[in-house]
């Protein structure tokens, strides 16, 4: 049985978050902006939303792209989503001696 539900966008899930999606790499979601897309992900994959948001904002070290654009340059959670857009979630690759 596929966990995918009907939606207007596909969302690519990084390895570390696939336990929430039963190891599905691409899932469907719906919404007209990033906020509602994340809400729809949380509804279908409980716990996933919390890994993306902190205090109602995108987590600093989670990158989200709509097509080729980092949403931070498109209004973050208010970034508009159109039918057929592709959303990609990638954890930042970061660290340091600090």
């Amino acid at each position, binding site marked *: 049985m596929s966990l995918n539900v009907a939606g207007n966008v596909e969302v690519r899930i990084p390895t570390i978050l696939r336990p929430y999606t039963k190891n599905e790499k691409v899932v469907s979601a719906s919404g007209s902006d990033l906020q509602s897309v994340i809400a729809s992900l949380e509804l279908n994959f409980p716990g996933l939303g919390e890994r993306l948001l902190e205090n109602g904002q995108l987590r600093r070290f989670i990158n989200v792209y709509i097509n080729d654009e980092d949403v931070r340059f498109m209004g973050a959670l208010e970034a508009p989503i159109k039918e057929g857009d592709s959303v990609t979630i990638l954890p930042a690759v970061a660290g340091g*001696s600090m």
Partner: protein
Amino acid sequence: MVLRIPQSFADAILEQSRQEYPDECCGVILGPIGSDQALRHKPMINSAHSPTFYEFDSKDLLALYREADDNDEEIVVVYHSHTETQAYPSRTDISYASEPNAHYVLVSTRKEIAPATEFRSYRIVDGVVTEEDVVFL
């Protein structure tokens, strides 16, 4: 667990760490999905340009994952340098480690050991660090 890595890649990473000193350097080695083979070295730009922090540029990160996807590759090694501290994952490294299947390589260019350099590899899964042996091929 053990990391098997071509000596030429290790040499190139150490050279990059010296070139980019005093900033931390970073990059990846890619390999076929599921193979655990470190086959393609790809240095990355440290967009933080900092002696105490590294971060892949957000656009570079997306391009890297797209490229890996197109080639049926995955990230086998994520590496970065520590410039003044030992080659052991910091709390920052542990909190941001997000590739449970990757080998996290740290090199150190700290003065106490110059001109030698440390080259060590770890698994970082759910906040737990496990050092592993490195075999140079």
